[in-house]
């Protein structure tokens, strides 16, 4: 490895975006790549997944929930690291607060500490979420948020706190915060390899387990692809791009409302013979109190399937009543070539893939 080559360390390389970013830097071939994973098993899995390119990567175990996670990143290596891309996080909306604090908040603190020990660091890129601004409504600028609007769940709270950790503790570091919108597909083909609350909610609707959804019909939803996020974060990690906060999200004009997304999804569902046969009605959009009544009452009038269904939906329910207008002019200026996909085409392709693959159960479609 040439000492003159930049060295990028990607945390959370076993996760969805971390793995994509690791692969991206390996494919470019102009970086020495260090990938961190949470466990030994994760190291083997990642090496297998990235092979043969993984031979060119150094994969180390670093559990961000541990008190001193970067013991395997020795001092020699720290002196050579030029870029840190911090993608490790617990991203479940229903994560409990303690785990979210340990991994997402304190873990980010460990990354900032590591960054301080890298004298040649030119970029610390922190992957965040548009929901790190919590329940803030209206125009949201690409700038640090104080968290004053409150949060819908512990995940959002932890990502907001992690951002403030980077901004406050890393004020002398070359930091960038990339607030990522909801990743609905790997790319514009609609292929989905990792499910999140968006996919799980549609699944519940498809199987007729949820006829009430939280939200207002006109709430805008910001969708991106894994490819687009990977490209944007990789470019924002280049010190040629100014530091600061970015919204890796389409602007409001390239979003769909909740009602439009449901219309597109159910239009596709209704083309499926099995779904059509069951005559499952489109879900009703419930006001916040009605949905909270449902969640609160579910223990007495529903069983384990509905319980699990609501456990997936309930933690982000409050966001479905929050109309965010994400300003992304900084992203546009830094990455003028970055283009948001057509949202209707993306949702249609994604739902098509989900239905055809039965949410991944029909492996031949997924493969």
């Amino acid at each position, binding site marked *: 490895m040439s000492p003159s080559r930049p060295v990028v360390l990607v945390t959370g390389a076993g996760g969805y975006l971390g793995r994509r970013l690791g692969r991206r830097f390996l494919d470019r071939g102009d970086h020495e790549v260090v990938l961190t994973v949470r466990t030994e098993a994760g190291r083997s899995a990642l090496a297998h997944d990235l092979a043969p390119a993984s031979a060119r990567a150094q994969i180390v175990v670093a559990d961000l929930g541990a008190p001193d996670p970067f013991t395997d990143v020795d001092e020699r290596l720290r002196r050579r690291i030029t870029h840190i891309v911090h993608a490790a996080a617990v991203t479940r909306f229903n994560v409990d607060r303690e785990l979210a604090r340990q991994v997402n908040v304190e873990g980010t603190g460990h990354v900032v500490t590591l960054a301080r020990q890298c004298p040649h660091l030119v970029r610390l890129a922190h992957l965040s979420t548009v929901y790190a601004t919590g329940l803030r409504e209206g125009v949201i600028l690409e700038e640090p948020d104080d968290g004053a609007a409150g949060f819908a769940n512990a995940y959002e709270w932890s990502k907001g706190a992690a951002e403030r950790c980077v901004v406050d503790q890393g004020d002398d570091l070359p930091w960038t915060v990339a607030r990522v919108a909801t990743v609905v597909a790997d790319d514009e083909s609609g292929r989905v390899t990792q499910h999140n609350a968006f996919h799980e909610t549609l699944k*519940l609707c498809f*199987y*007729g*387990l*949820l*006829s*009430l959804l939280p939200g207002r019909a006109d709430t805008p939803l910001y969708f991106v692809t894994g490819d687009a996020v990977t490209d944007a974060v990789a470019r924002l990690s280049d010190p040629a791009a100014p530091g600061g906060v970015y919204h890796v999200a389409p602007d409001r004009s390239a979003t769909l409302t909740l009602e439009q997304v449901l219309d597109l999804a159910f239009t596709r569902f209704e083309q499926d013979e099995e779904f059509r*046969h*069951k*005559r*499952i*009605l*489109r*879900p*009703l959009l*419930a*006001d916040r*109190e*009605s949905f909270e*009544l*449902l969640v*609160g*009452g579910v*223990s*007495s*009038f*529903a*069983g*384990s*399937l*509905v319980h699990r269904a609501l456990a997936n939906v309930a933690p982000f329910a409050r966001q479905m009543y929050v109309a965010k207008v994400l300003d992304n002019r900084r992203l546009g200026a830094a990455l003028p070539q970055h283009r948001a996909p057509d949202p209707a085409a993306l949702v249609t392709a994604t739902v098509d893939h989900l239905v055809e693959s039965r949410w991944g159960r029909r492996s031949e479609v997924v493969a």
Partner: protein
Amino acid sequence: MTPSFLGGLSFALGGRKLSVEESVAAGRTLSGEAELSDAGFRFHHVCTDDESAYDLALAAVGGRPDQPAGIDAIVYATCLPVNANLAPPSRFEASGDVKDLMDYPASRLQAALGLDRAIVVGVGQQACTSMLGSIRLARGLLAAEPEMERILCVSADRFPPGARYEQAYSLISDGAASCVVTRHDGDYRLVAAHHITNGAMVSAGDDETVGAYFSYTHRLVTELLAKAGRTPADLAWVVPQNTDPKAWRILARLLGLDDERVFAASLADVAHVISGDNVVNLSWLEERGVLESGDLVVLVMAGYGMNWQALLVEKT
């Protein structure tokens, strides 16, 4: 539509009144005491060993304040097909004669009450909605056959021995209900009826049943009111089935109704009386003396099949 009216509400319950605790302890439920209590259930009524669904029907009709004189038809509904044949299964097993599968309770009721002029019609396969379905059919009979004046509607069910007394998270009571649909007078004018069936969900599990409950019930009531040219704001009362009140608190909000107008006060004492809930709750509402002439009341029921039925009635 030919004017028609509803009156003579009556009901009878299984002879053993059991507490939730007793039935949970006896293994009659799937849910625990805490879940059923949280859903508002306190007691339910189970037939004694020698009590049949037909006995309940006879008790319900016999308990009416006015005897069913001058009845032109009996519409007799059962939720469970087993309750439409009074002969014990052993009789057919021994004889192999299918007439032992046709010991009809409606015929026996006609004979027992001496309603010689009445024809009998059996209604089945509508589950918990079968009383509302019977009233709807009676209304149709009055419209189709001008010589008919009064039709007795009866629904009666008891669960067979060994059955679990819980369905879709509701505690069940054995019971019967009756009412009379007439051409000229009654306590309520029948304004509109609506029925949705989704046969593809006939084998739906409890979670799918709950999953469909809100959207289908919302559609049912919305379409019923549209038929009648009314809006939710016109409703004085909603008389639903005895299920967790939280479900109707949610539905009331979705429909734009005041949930204090949803009346299912019998739930704690009576539980879910299969297809008799609307009759039981409307009777309780009458007893409270709060109904006024001109009040619009919607009776709503969901049942397996899947069926959703609702009636819109106006207090006379």
